[in-house]
């Protein structure tokens, strides 16, 4: 029981790293990026190709970060012409990109499911709360917590964060102040995508890397974002931790309802609070 709660936190923090990028891009830049799952899978495959040693794991993280930034910038430029069109148009564009990316990953890495080893020293198990638990997942909880604080501080407490929030509030006014708001969008998109590829490398030892994983994690990320509320770092964290618990504790307590428990939670939130738990008073819930 307690080990399930602990595991809920591990999965929750992983989901946070995955979903916060999607939440930032959608909530702040108003672009629904359905290629987010493909970015995660790209990171997972990088991990599968390079991980095995600490050097390889850190190299995978570094390459994933750079590739994520570049991919995000590219996606930002691609969606720019659709800025004044509906979400559906953007979703279709990014969905197309996601399909192309997924197929490209199959061509490069093959279609066999791959497992990703945790770095040496973290690939074992330790005894926690009287149960055996994988060391890597414990470390992931710490890494996720640190990342959550960093992202929160950057968005809420720094000048750059203020600029981003200002762009969201009034794009034209920020432009009138002499800031190129396309650049702001490129940066937010890049960082959001960086978080997705990083989550892929970090999540590799738990989820592995396989065709189809992109769709699975995209749905999880969308559920987290909807539950937590769009564009809110705290919302993404709360949503991710709730889904982490629902997905582990819920499945342990109600195994026969395992397929439904996640979406039942989603439906409950949508009925009671459509803008998400921490979503701003219907602000961006158009």
């Amino acid at each position: 029981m307690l080990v399930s709660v602990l595991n809920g936190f591990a999965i929750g923090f992983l989901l946070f790293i995955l979903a916060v990028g999607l939440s930032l891009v959608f909530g702040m830049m108003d672009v629904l990026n359905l290629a987010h799952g493909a970015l995660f899978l790209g990171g997972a495959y990088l991990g599968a190709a390079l991980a095995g040693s600490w050097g390889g794991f850190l190299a995978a993280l570094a390459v994933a970060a750079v590739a994520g930034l570049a991919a995000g910038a590219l996606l930002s430029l691609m969606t720019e012409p659709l800025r004044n069109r509906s979400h559906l148009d953007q979703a279709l564009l990014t969905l197309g990109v996601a399909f192309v990316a997924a197929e490209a990953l199959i061509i490069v890495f093959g279609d066999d499911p791959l497992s990703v080893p945790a770095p040496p020293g973290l690939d074992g198990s330790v005894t926690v709360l009287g149960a055996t638990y994988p060391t890597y997942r414990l470390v992931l909880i710490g890494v996720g917590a640190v990342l959550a604080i960093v992202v929160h501080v950057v968005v809420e407490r720094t000048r750059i964060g203020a600029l981003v929030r200002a762009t969201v509030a009034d794009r034209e006014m920020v432009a009138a102040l002499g800031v190129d708001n396309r650049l702001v969008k490129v940066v937010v998109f890049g960082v959001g995508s960086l978080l997705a590829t990083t989550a892929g490398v970090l999540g590799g030892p738990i989820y592995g890397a396989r065709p189809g994983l992109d769709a699975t994690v995209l749905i999880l990320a969308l559920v987290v974002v909807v539950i937590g509320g769009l564009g809110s770092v705290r919302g993404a964290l709360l949503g991710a931790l709730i889904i982490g618990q629902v997905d582990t504790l819920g499945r342990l307590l109600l195994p026969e309802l395992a397929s439904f428990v996640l979406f039942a939670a989603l439906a409950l939130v949508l009925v009671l609070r459509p803008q998400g738990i921490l979503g701003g008073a219907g602000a961006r819930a158009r």
Partner: protein
Amino acid sequence: MADQPILTRRRLLSLFGAAATLPVLSACGSSVGGGDTGSGGSGGGGGGTVKVGLVVPQSGVYAALGTDLQRGWELWLQQNGGKFGDYTVETVIADEGEGPPTGVPAVQKVLQSDGVDVVVGLVNSATALGVKDTLTEAKKLLIVTNAGAEDVTRAQRTPYIWRSSFTNGQIAAAMGTHLASSGFKDGVYLIAPDYAAGKEVIAGFTSAFEAGGGTVLASATTPFGTTTDYQPFLTGIQQAGAKATFCFYSGAEAIAFVKQYQQFGLSSTIPLYGSGFLTEGSVLKQQADAALGVQTTLHYSDQIDNPANKAFVEAYKGAYGGESPSCFSVQSYDAANVLNRALASATALDGDALSTALGGIGTVDDSPRGPWEFENQTPKQNIYLRKVENVEGVLVNAIVQDLGPQSQPAA
């Protein structure tokens, strides 16, 4: 495909050269085998061409199985001069994809636009059940080379559909009988994905296990295709006080389940048993040491010690860059084998004649999996108890015991 050469002058000349030899070759053919009659249908036992539609997954989650199936088929033909007796075999390959929306049209395509005489392949059980009417209308034969649903050769049985692979329950039943007689009469926990094959495996295991005097402790089903973290279910197994676990997973789920079973400390206290697909083929390498000691039942292992298998494994490794064959390779290899035997006595290439001929081939005595025979159009075959062991740095499914011949379980 990137190194596809451009048409150079030399290549063009060699093509002309090859074309020039064709009339000579066909002349030889006519003097020996009675002439190349082009597309089949009119052969009637005296030479000609038999056109086979090989429908296997070339994309999607089963693509790796498709590769093994295609290799097994091609290896048999390569070893036998591309011929079934006097018939020259012409293979048309089509992509089955993941399920009936792609698989059924692929079968229709090879039947209707390619005009094949026989269809071989199909990984997905829903696809195998979904093409029944198409085959019955066309009166053509299908040899299923994987799809393990019981209904294919039980409730939905038709003379036009035969199977060279296994049934889900057949493999699980052998394990059920074995566990009941080896000290696990109580305390066995069952876990499988919540889709048709998972349910058939659980049912096949349970009825054999109970017939052997065992009682199932508890069972759980996991959401199919979307479960990536098995921790809640693994904790459930521990809390239930299980003495052994029997499971059915394949592909990515098999990798995740076996690895997490070890990571969460179950493998040292609760031995893991499974249907053979848990550790078959490419997944074993990905599971790595987490799979050590896992015991499974299956109708094949590349470790089987018989002359036919030794020769098969050696030829397969030689042909495909040192890769070991899987049960999937054998299933299509044997499909070619039984078609060859059937054509020796078939009076025509239509489904009725071939079905009658297949019914009379008796025991297939030169299969890598050991001797087997058709019973109700699906193999009655020996099932092997296998254990994952490290042999000189390579993980293999070592044979522990031959559990003897096993029929498809009765409904």
